[in-house]
């Protein structure tokens, strides 16, 4: 088993963080995992993406040409990575920012109003966690607690209790909507 | 690289336009970065002197690396720190050209110190624009030779400790001691008055070259709001209240 997940969106949407939390959770639950970010001028240009591979044997390619899961947090990311998703895979996209759903019939398409949900929770920056919650459900590899614990580790060090609580809510919303 | 398009609506008269020696490419600098102002001033001076077609620029390695995209002039992209040597080669090969370099503090005053000092000492007839933002902007905010004492950077996480890493390097003061240079000045662009003074200095530095007077350097004390994690307005204040303590403005050497 080797599952590729791509998170993509604007810089500032917490794309890299969402991927990192997933990687951390997968590691804690005994999986092999690799997290590879986009870096350099691409990020200056305002876009960001990262690839997470979760596997039960040592990860081969850190580059994923046919992801099983895509989380597209904006339109350009959906356009860029949508066509690459493996048949039978899942496209989770941010319907708050993307008007038209991707034109594919061979994958499961999951629109999530990530920004609206985050705003309802009173923290615009939590949109990424809505996406991540949905990924956890779709993968079905480990319970949501694995991710809430990993997130607490990531954010806890930065001592933001309120943010933690809101993010937990956001994860849960994403998880239950998927 | 994205492009700037401006259309003048019918009935309007443009009073502030893009300098002719700039291309239509959008600057890649961060919002509020002083590089943007300084780059534009150089272009305005080239326009005013009418030398665009005989000017050759030398781009550094740093946030100004894309200078060759921004200008409508011939350009050489130099290895990190070597701009003054490359400029020397161009100027010696064809003295009719107007040759300028545009360099950051890491580029000019760390890795390129030797090239800069020796070009100045030879009185090389070139113009040097030196953007001193007290940090390595492009690589993500490491200490520069000009970083202020106590200033936190990613390589001085506890603040610059002068006992371990020395003091802000006063490159212009050093160069002013040499017999070679014709003009060494330090300016800033944190408010309109200073922007205008900087422009005058750049104009003089290019005129010097046209008149064959020799090496002219304009240091501009600047801010990098991105790596200092402050707003552009705070960046202006940073320069005025912090940086100028170590880098006082004014002419350091004028040979007439």
């Amino acid at each position, binding site marked *: 088993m080797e599952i590729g997940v791509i998170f993509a969106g604007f810089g500032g949407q917490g794309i890299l963080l969402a991927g990192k939390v997933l990687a951390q959770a997968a590691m804690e639950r005994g999986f092999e995992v690799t997290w590879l970010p986009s870096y350099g001028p691409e990020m200056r240009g305002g876009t960001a993406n990262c690839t997470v591979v979760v596997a039960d044997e*040592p990860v081969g390619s850190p580059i994923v040409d046919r992801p099983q899961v895509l989380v597209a947090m904006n339109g350009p990311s959906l356009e860029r990575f949508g066509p690459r998703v493996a048949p039978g895979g899942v496209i989770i996209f941010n319907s708050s920012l993307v008007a038209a759903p991707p034109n594919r019939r061979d994958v499961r398409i999951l629109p999530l109003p990530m920004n609206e949900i985050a705003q309802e929770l009173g923290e615009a920056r939590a949109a990424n966690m809505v996406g991540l919650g949905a990924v956890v459900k779709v993968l079905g590899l480990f319970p949501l607690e694995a991710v809430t614990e990993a997130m607490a580790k990531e954010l806890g060090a930065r001592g933001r209790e309120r943010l933690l609580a809101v993010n937990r809510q956001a994860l849960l919303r994403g998880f239950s909507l998927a | 690289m994205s492009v700037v398009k401006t259309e003048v609506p019918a009935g309007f008269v443009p009073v502030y336009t893009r300098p002719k020696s700039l291309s239509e490419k959008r600057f890649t600098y961060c919002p509020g970065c002083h590089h943007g102002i300084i780059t534009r001033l150089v272009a305005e001076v080239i326009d005013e002197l009418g030398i665009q077609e005989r000017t050759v620029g030398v781009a550094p390695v740093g946030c100004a690396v894309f200078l060759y995209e921004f200008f409508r002039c011939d350009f050489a992209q130099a290895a990190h720190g070597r701009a003054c040597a490359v400029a020397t080669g161009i100027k010696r090969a064809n003295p009719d050209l107007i040759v300028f370099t545009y360099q950051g503090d890491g580029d000019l005053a760390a890795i390129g110190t030797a090239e800069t000092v020796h070009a100045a000492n030879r009185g090389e007839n070139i113009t040097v624009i030196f953007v001193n933002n007290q940090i390595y902007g492009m690589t993500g905010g490491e200490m520069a030779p000009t970083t202020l004492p106590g200033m936190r950077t990613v390589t001085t996480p506890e603040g610059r400790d002068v006992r371990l890493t020395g003091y802000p390097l006063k490159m212009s003061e050093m160069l002013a001691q040499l017999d070679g240079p014709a003009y060494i000045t330090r300016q800033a662009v944190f408010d309109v008055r200073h922007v205008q003074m900087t422009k005058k200095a750049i104009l003089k530095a290019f005129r010097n070259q046209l008149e064959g007077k020799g090496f002219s350097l304009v240091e501009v004390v600047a801010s990098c709001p991105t790596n200092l994690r402050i707003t552009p307005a705070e960046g202006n204040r940073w320069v005025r209240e912090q940086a100028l303590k170590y880098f006082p403005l004014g002419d350091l050497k004028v040979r007439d």
Partner: protein
Amino acid sequence: MKVLMRGNEAMAEAAIRAGCRCYFCYPITPQGELVEYMARHLPRRGGVFLQAESEVAAINMVYGAAAAGVRTMTSSSSPGISLKMEGISYLAGARLPAVIVNVMRAGPGLGNIAPAQGDYFQATKGGGHGDYRLIVLAPSTVQEAAELVMLAFDLSDRYRVPAMILADGMLGQMMEPVELPEPIPLERIPPKPWALSGAKGRDPNVASSFDLDPHRFREILRALWDVYREIERNEVRWEEYETEDAELVLVAYGTMGRICKTVVRRARKEGLRVGLFRPITLWPFPSEPLRKLASRVPVFLTVELSAGQMWEDVRLSVEGRAKTPFYGELGGVVPTPDEILSEVKKHVGG
């Protein structure tokens, strides 16, 4: 306990655990995190972190610290490594141990900061002037990067030959779980009687690569090459994956090596008998094991992020016993497993 770490950070931590007490650097992408990690951690753990005014200065600081008998390291990426080449040649000539990390990016010139493998020749064939070699280790995972950094310090000390870690931007930037090796207590590091420690009660020690007498210098170099031959006998490392029944073996190192592992898995799923040979030491190059494999494998497809550099060593090893096609990408472009797989299919199973 496993921790999730970036390649750059794992290499920095491994160096500290290997007893590196002097680290000199000049910032460059994509190895910035290594520099930052050292800035944050090394001073607190009793070491020296110093940002030099250039790579030229940094490598010569390494020369000084190595001569003083301390475990020392510098790191950079391609353009910066070019500047270090003079110093590396002097380290090799003066028989000083040191570790140099190159997190490769695309060149020549300023190129870009995307991952590449265009510095293979520079690393394995000299790079600087003169007749010398470096021990060159090529990790493909973050775990292996940490282990090879520690090994690099040991080998470099044991043979008094500088060692280089040849990684690339992908490995530097990626995060993976790492089981960090236990720190080496400084007192366990073998003493260095040749170090410049003050000529008290002994004849002076000199760190030098200078000898005006060609005959005498020849003898010094002959002794050096005896050491290189010993390294070639003892230190060759490589990994073979699914080679037993392979009709085609991919030859790739570093991150390309692991990408090719995915290619092997996909090929096997389609019933193609494909394997992987991954050199871990690039110098000494695993020529013997590759030559042995060539007596039963008809095709070796070398895959690199370059126009074909290690490819030359593959061909020299195989010595015409098998076909040796090449597939590479330039400029920082990384081929996908499927792209490599379709290249594989041109040579096998048809």
